[in-house]
């Protein structure tokens, strides 16, 4: 069943790509790049999300009467290949803008490409703060809440914990490093009494979980910050459960509440971790209900966070194109700066000051229900509440 639905999805994607080639001159084309072959657990729901958005937009009359076409490319997880794809989209497909990307280094590579070639780029997922701050440029906008914002959301809850001795476990690459650095900085500002007693840096995708768990336990922390995700998280949780690492300890964890990472854990899901994520089953707002209904009707499957990101990326792109009334890059930038639009999580705005959207995330606790992992006590944190002051942002971002 699963295999078949994948085949159908692939066929649709091929069809979509084929349609891209034969698109009429009046159509508006958007180029989309993501790590489809490297990270299918995220990018498959992501693809479904944006396909739903395209369908809705065109059913509602397209963009100012013109049909929207998305041309999608795989980057295989390599920055150099992402640039080849970006080049193809811009030079031969003639797309109005670039969107997508998951990994931070690929997001930065495409952002640099956009800056050089003067193309509008809406980054969907890459979390690194550098995309909008240290290496930000006038052509690049980003949808998802950055590392800094997610850290700030978690710190708000973590700083209320009594724990004073903290240990960290994070994958050894930029994302893990910057997540830990921001979390430590914000945490130590709020709680000068905190001690950092151990840090573990397993290589991404290659955690040797037993020794890592043992080493953390040896430092005897009262609380643990986890930044690992995907298969690494599974191994860490399993070893941690068996060895009793999490017993009597608070755990704060990035992204663990996202269905992509929480669902595989099933009956191994640890209880009471403070996490960011997406509890699609307990969000009761009209905007989200509408999205959920449409998604389930089309795919007969529940959405993951990737679905939201894919959906909203294309919705945002369409809103920007509609407002600009043109595919001219400068007009798109002018239209995007400060634009507000609805999203399944409520209204969001792309800030003029750093091109970051105010899309937020849910913070809650993990729990088990019928042998499945869920997020409980979840509340939505608006992105706008967790960004530094404008003066600080000015300092972080190079002048255009």
């Amino acid at each position, binding site marked *: 069943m*699963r295999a078949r639905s994948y085949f159908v999805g692939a066929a649709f994607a091929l069809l979509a790509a084929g349609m891209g080639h034969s698109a009429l001159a009046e159509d508006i084309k958007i180029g989309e790049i993501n790590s489809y072959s490297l990270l299918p657990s995220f990018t498959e729901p992501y693809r479904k999300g944006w396909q739903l958005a395209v369908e809705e937009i065109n059913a509602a009359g397209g963009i100012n009467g013109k049909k929207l076409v998305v041309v999608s490319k795989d980057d295989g997880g390599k920055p150099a290949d992402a640039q080849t794809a970006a080049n193809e989209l811009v030079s031969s497909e003639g797309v109005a803008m670039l969107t997508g990307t998951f990994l931070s280094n690929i997001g930065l590579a495409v952002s640099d490409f956009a800056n050089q070639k003067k193309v509008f780029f809406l980054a969907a997922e890459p979390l690194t703060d550098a995309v909008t701050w240290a290496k930000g440029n006038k052509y690049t906008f980003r949808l998802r809440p950055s590392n800094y914002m997610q850290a700030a959301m978690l710190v708000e809850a973590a700083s209320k914990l009594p724990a004073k001795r903290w240990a960290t476990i994070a994958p050894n690459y930029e994302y893990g490093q910057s997540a830990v650095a921001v979390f430590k900085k914000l945490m130590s500002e709020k709680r000068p009494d905190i001690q950092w007693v151990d840090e573990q840096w397993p290589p991404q995708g290659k955690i040797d979980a037993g020794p890592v768990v043992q080493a953390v336990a040896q430092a005897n922390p009262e609380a643990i910050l986890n930044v690992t995700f995907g298969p690494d998280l599974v191994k860490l949780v399993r070893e941690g459960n068996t060895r009793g690492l999490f017993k009597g300890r608070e755990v704060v964890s990035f992204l663990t509440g996202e269905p992509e990472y929480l669902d595989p854990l099933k009956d191994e899901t640890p209880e009471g971790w403070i996490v960011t994520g997406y509890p699609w089953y307990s969000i009761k707002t009209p905007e989200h209900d509408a999205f959920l209904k449409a998604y389930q009707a089309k795919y007969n499957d529940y959405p993951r966070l990737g679905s939201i990101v894919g959906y909203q990326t294309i919705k945002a792109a369409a809103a920007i194109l509609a407002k600009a009334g043109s595919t001219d890059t400068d007009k798109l930038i002018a239209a995007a700066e400060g634009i507000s639009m609805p999203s399944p999580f409520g209204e969001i705005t792309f800030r003029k000051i750093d091109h970051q959207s105010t899309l937020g995330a849910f913070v809650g606790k993990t729990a088990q229900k019928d042998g499945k992992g869920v997020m409980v006590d979840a509340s939505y944190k608006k992105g706008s509440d967790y960004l530094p002051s404008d003066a600080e942002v000015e300092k972080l971002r190079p002048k255009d």
Partner: protein
Amino acid sequence: MAFYVVQFLTGLASAASLFLVASGLSIIFGVTRIVNFAHGAFYMIGAYIAFTLTERFSGAFGFWGGVVMAALAVALIGVLVEMVLLRRIYHAPELFQLLGTFGLTLMVEDLVVLIWGPDDLVGRRAPGFKGAVDFFGQNIPSYDLFLIVLGPVVLGILWLLFQRTRWGVLVRAATQDRDMVAALGVNQKWLFTSVFAVGVFLAALGGALQIPRDAVHHAMDLRIIVEVFVVVVIGGLGSIVGAFVAAVLVSELNAFGILIFPKISIILVFLVMAAVLIVRPWGLFGKPEAAARKTPGLSVNPWRPLTSNERLASLAALVIAALLPLFAGNYALTVGSEIAIFVIFAVSLHFLMSVGGLASFGHAAYFGLGAYGVAFLAKMAGLPMIVCLLLGPLLGCMGAAVFGFFAVQLSGVYFAMLTLAFAQIVWSIAFQWVSVTGGDNGILGVWPASWAASPSHFYWLALGVAALVTIALRIAVFSPFGYALRATRDSLLRSEAVGINAKRIQWTAFVIAGTTAGIGGALFAYLKGSVFPDNLGISLSVDALVMVLLGGVETVSGGVIGAIVYKALNIWLVSQTDLSKLVLGGFIVLIVVVFPKGIVGMLEMLAQRRRKSPPPGSSLLAKPIESAE
């Protein structure tokens, strides 16, 4: 104290998982001399099938039965692969089998996602081994204890198998000298098939046994394959005991290393391997390889410079390529530039591999160093593009000079693995030294100067450099230096007997190849406008190997053709289909079966057959000389 004991036991459990997979690889390599890149893929399929079986059948019998059944099923797949694919290419040039198994690996990565879906799968815990044992207040998972026992048990069974059975005697004999075993009338076909089946069974068992502690996903193969290779090489190829000791050594060093340097895991195995190989060139328990009974000279036509007609044809091809900007768009030109750069890269590796007989598994290091050299000069020193292009490759040259000195002391697969270790060390420096290299976020904004910025200008630049580099290396091949290098490749002893300083010649070749790769890297940095640790990574090194093997390792121009075909196909497939790995892998497997001498090798053979009356005098040489096997 209890903590250190538990940490030691935890390390042993990791070692046991590693050993299972490594022992299979070691046996396969020892007997068949196949660098089985697909070993990780078999490990992964083992885990996937075991997941399905253990989900379907519950209870202790269901679980353990499922694990064993999965391993057996994968062993059957292994037999099929050996009989259908590998049997056809045992007589192909060394390492060509690597290409075939690489193609298989690509296919499997897409196939598992098609069959089992994109989500990470978490299987059941092992019945009877779900909890932990208390050891002075520290918990040891009982499954870890099971693995700790299983490792030595498997080692013991393998030992008995090799020491006490006729089959084992044959395997050991073949490991030592397979030509002699063949000469004594042993049916090699079935020996190889059975060895391959046992090796694959062990890999799949290793994968299946990961179910209670790991998630099953489509990148498991790459996660383990390199590490396992390293373990096998540290232990000494073909030595099961060596693989066991090496697995324990690596796992324990990691378990205790992270207590002091939490970031060490990323590079530890490669540091250990580099250290071991420099001190003991054949690994801890390995023996010097028996001198291969290769016929001096190759099994294909002897090399000769191009005839004047062929020169004209090449020139015409170059002119046509140079006219591309007149009718192609910007995208095609950028792809053209990329292909030209990869021609430089492939030609440089080809020089080392085909002319020098030194297959490097870490050639991307020098490509990447060239790219980083340019990025440093352009971003930090602010030098103009021409200066950067001239000076940037020097970083590749220096890297090659230092690492090459150590690497050429070894030969064969040990040489390859030492180059891999060095490349990984360079990669991890680029990855870790965030303040200088930007870590994995790389160095951005290395764009070409305005005179080269337009796609057509850059294309002409890349094409021109590629042509110059190719011509220069061809001249080197047919220079006295080239002849000396080929002499060291064909017979080290004889070349030294006639007074050639083999190590110095090989070292010089290594530096030439490294510098040339650096030139490619320097151009690549400007093409992409950015430099990432990826540019030094394993996958790029593998790409280069694939290009050379695809073109034909025993030919003079294989690198050029291989690079053009592979790169163009890769870019086109990734752009056109979501299943690019499946199609590309299938294509590679097909090429391997149909053209076991590579594309150029095959063309040369066809040309040879067509030539109705070969000129007198060359007829003797022109006859393919069969290898002695």
